């Protein structure tokens, strides 16, 4: 098996579809994580202000 045989063929519609699906799901998870972080920082700020 050579390196070239290993490389995914991005001209292949199936491979491209798979790539896009993964990119999309990763983007969604990353978006959710960022929203979670924003909420967390907001809550921490509120609590810290309350403490002082």
């Amino acid at each position, binding site marked *: 098996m050579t390196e070239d045989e290993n490389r995914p063929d991005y001209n292949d519609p199936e491979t491209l579809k798979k790539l896009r699906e993964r*990119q999309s799901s990763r983007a969604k998870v990353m978006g959710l994580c960022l929203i979670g972080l924003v909420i967390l920082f907001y809550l*921490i700020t509120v609590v810290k202000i309350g403490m002082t």
Partner: protein
Amino acid sequence: MNADTVTSTDHGTGQLAPSDYIAPDYIAADWRDFYALTKPGVLKLVIFTGICGLLAAPGSIHPVIAFTAILCIALGAGGSAALNQWYEGEIDGRMKRTSRRPIPAGRMQPQSALHFGIGLSALSVFIMGVGVNWLSAGILAVAIFYYAVIYTIWLKPNTPQNIVIGGGAGAFPPVIGWAAVTGDVTLLPILLFALIFIWTPPHFWALAMFVKSDYAKAGIPMMPVVAGEKSTRRQIFWYSVVLLAVAAAPPLLGLTGWIYGVPAIMLSLIFLGLAAKVGFRQESDPKKMKPEKQLFAFSIVYLFAVFAVLVADRLVYAGAPA
């Protein structure tokens, strides 16, 4: 992605890179592979002991800050696990138990794991410092460095004492949880650290006894591979004796009550009994390692149970009138 990129994960040691290995190429890794990099199974124990340290500490903590502290412990542990898998990608591919992980299975580029691990680790320390306190953030940073660098890169490939010293990495969470509440570290969290530290070698060596061939194949100098079974069995027993002493120390020193003391000593005696069965037998056939498997399974229950009774004890005595 080519073969050189993957074989570079042996970091120039030259002993593990197979010359005929051609890495698979990668489509963008799935988010589940990133999740798998954090070793979710190990995270459960880390989170649990972190929560126990937090609950056992005197004083109070706002639920949001407590949640932040536990989240940061989990993120830090996940980040260091990702760094561990980045470094050990090639070694993992040689062991049946770890060959399905994202990097050896060819589902992720090692570089992605490296970036993910560094990012997660840095984020966890930063949030812990800003949101909780900088002492717990500092201990978290030390724990990450201890696991990712001292254990993974330095100790594990070089010495059969890897688990003995490396066990310290997993012993930090209750100390971090404690420091998140109190802002300091006293004798009890140090004893909790010692408990996990001493528990780790018999726990891990029991596993290493029945997966010995896997470690030998990967070139990892685990105690049963290097020092032999007899020596490892004796050490499992003696570490279990020390474990009993460490587990019994908090009530004897007046740091906890007997709600913790009685069950902890009983559980430690059962642990010692199982370790004695392992320690004084001679069996090298992995198929006949029932006592070793029993000890490994019980050791996990043991740690959960000891920390659970510690929290129960501390909550009962915290609520009791002075």
